[in-house]
């Protein structure tokens, strides 16, 4: 005796929906591999930090007066885009556009301050290993921020054009994941470059 299994006859959503969207899965995978990339970048940083050679790292501790507030700004932008995403889920186009737009604006401010920070450094890309690392790692992050800003900009515009609603907001969720990732990575970069020297991981004077 044998029974043939049933073919499911449930009603199914059609198209890209929330966590069932291919794009959502794709973005999660992309975030994983990008996280690994930053993992290797920071491994390289720490690989230099444990070396005894003193000429590689600057003798003074990294100044925080630009980087710390900038970190707060980036985190605030994450909160803003989160609100934007909630707006999409609740069919509030205004909240959606404002959230994404504010997130975008804060991101731009972050980029501006980061440029100032770059400008204020006494070393350059090719001065020594520390300079190479600093500018490459923060440069990588900057590239991700800019990509994230382009995504946020498109999403803001598309939102304003009314492309998204409560049934179809997968692109927003996907874009927002990326932006949160960019923020989380900054926290890791900030911790490595700006905080660990204060925690004893640096080269003596």
């Amino acid at each position: 005796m044998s029974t043939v299994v049933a073919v499911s006859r449930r009603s199914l959503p059609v198209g890209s929906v929330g966590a069932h969207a291919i794009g959502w899965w794709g973005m999660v995978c992309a975030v994983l591999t990008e996280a690994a990339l930053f993992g290797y970048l920071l491994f390289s940083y720490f690989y230099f930090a444990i070396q005894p050679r003193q000429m590689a790292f600057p003798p003074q501790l990294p100044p925080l007066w630009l980087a710390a507030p900038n970190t707060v700004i980036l985190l605030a932008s994450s909160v803003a885009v989160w609100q934007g995403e909630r707006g999409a889920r609740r069919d509030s186009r205004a909240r959606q556009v404002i959230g994404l737009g504010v997130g975008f604006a804060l991101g731009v401010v972050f980029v501006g301050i980061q440029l100032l920070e770059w400008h204020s450094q006494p070393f350059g890309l090719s001065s020594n290993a520390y300079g190479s690392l600093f500018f490459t790692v923060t440069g990588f992050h900057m590239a991700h921020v800019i990509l994230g800003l382009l995504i946020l900009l498109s999403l803001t515009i598309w939102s304003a054009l009314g492309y998204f609603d409560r049934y179809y907001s997968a692109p927003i969720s996907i874009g927002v994941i990326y932006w949160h990732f960019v923020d989380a990575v900054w926290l890791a970069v900030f911790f490595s470059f700006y905080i660990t020297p204060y925690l004893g991981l640096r080269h003596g004077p």
Partner: protein
Amino acid sequence: MTTTELDRVPEVAPRDYGSPLASKLEHLWATKPGIVGWLGSVDHKEIGLRYIVTAFVFLLVGGLEALVFRIQLAWPNQHLLSPAQYDQLFSMHGATMILWYAFPVLTGFSVYLQPLVLGTRDMAMPRLNAFTYWVYLFSGLYLYVGLALGSAPNAGWFNYVPYASRPYNPGLNIDFYALANILLGISTTLGSLNFVVTILHQRAPGMSINRMPILSWGTLTISVGNLFAMPSVTLAFFFLWLDRQFGTHFYDPPSGQPLLWQHLFWMWGHPWVYVIVLPALSMVSEALPVLCRRPLVGYTAVALATVLTMVLGFGVWLHHMFATGLPNIALAFFSAVSLFIVIPSAVSNFAWLATIWTGRPVFNTAFLFFVGFIVVFVIGGVSGFMTGSVPADWQLTDTYFVVAHIHYVLIGWNLFAVMGASYFWFPKMFGRMLDEHLGRWNFWLMFIGFNVGFFPMHITGLLGMPRRVYTYPDGMGWDTLNLIITIGSYVMAAGMLLFIVNVFYSLRRGVVAGPNPWDAATLEWSTPSPPPPYNFVVIPTLASRTPLWEDRLDEGPYRSELNEGMPLDHGKEVLGTSSLDAQPNVILRMPEDSLVPLFFALVLTLLFAGLIVKFWWLVVTCIGAGLLLQLIWLWPRSELRERRP
């Protein structure tokens, strides 16, 4: 779940490849005729075949390179090639085989087979799939443009700094290698991402994760592995390129660290060794049982071994660096760990042996290749075990013993499995069987040629012949052995040639295969050969791992439903299912054929061309064009959604 206006209860239709439904699907899914249609195709079968063919071309080119320098090495003190030419040839040989053949050929099989074995109609991201193929092709061409310009990589495939740094290697050789690798890395990463999503999200209903073919476990495992490993090598090459072109100090000794290269390279390199063998092993685990007329012994153990090998692969990169002056305590630990990585391989090995022992084998060419594979697998495994022991490795490393080992692993574990898989799946791909008579000759020539060609390398290695020497003095005890090696390599090449002859012969004259010539158990054999563009006229529903053998294996009271299922014919549609139980949870719309992937790949390649000649205007233009193309690619399109009533 509340029903919105965007939901639909899918119809159910009978399986009939001659019905109007089938012709409707054919119309929806078929690649458009003409060169534009061909270039824009996103059909995974088309792309999979392109991958396989391209990879085989690279295999032949890499093989030819080896045949040239084997003449140089056949006798002592030869001067057929200058040292500079030799260095470029052996570096190109290594890079071509390891990076542009070994993985892409497996990717090709996966791209072709995965949607079929999973019971779906295409990869999750078909345009991305096309894009990754184009980028792979262009990255290979990019590298070979370097060779044509006389600037091929010359620092070996693992390209150690500082020799690969600018002061010691001022030409463009290494820049070509670095940038081609970054380009290839983009393709590999995105391809892996596509596999992960496809396998976790698009299996046929009922194919819960424990019913997934081992083939899919292999691909899933290495794809996840790639997501974590690829950034390392991409970054290593990016640092190198910055060091060479922009004066950064990552690797140059006063403040840089030469060993950082080795860490980053082997953090990728060791997992990579598993990346280019695990899918091949999983092909054996999939096909060998069919030829032994029984299910694989120890499914769970083999799946677990696959995953654990990959995970362990991330932890043992230091065993490529035993001679770099690491602390002795660390060496002891890593030596032990490196030895124990043999255990998962032993699991697979004994599973195959038990499958043959308890099965009733069919002696055809594919089976012979798998048996040959097992022999080579064991030899490659034990030589790896020898190099895992630190004190022995201090002697063995960088000698021909290691050359023998990597060839037993890469040719044995990869090429023999791929050859067997080619004989096994060729009928599915082209509807005709490969010729058995030629096949026997092909196998024995390759098997004998391979062993005659590579086994003596163990001995030359033990007699102290260093690898990567363009020539060697006489009186070192290596002369006869090297001649034997060269003869063996030519015999093996003859075997390979016979395979090509067989392919061309069988494409026209081969025996017509029918849907399931091997009477195999998995879903790809339930569709016609070659499969129609839409793969399955209705989506099958599974009740076991071996849907086509259920009646004969007495698999319990439940049977897979292959004769009726969802037609999903409202457009290019596939079924999305949950990742654990494979319960249907969404109907996904697939994109049409498109030229955007090709253009985007071209723009990307042009960008890299701009980087190597430092035409910054070209780089900037390409970035702009790329962003524009992305905007087109990702524009939220209503046709991918259900229209509201």
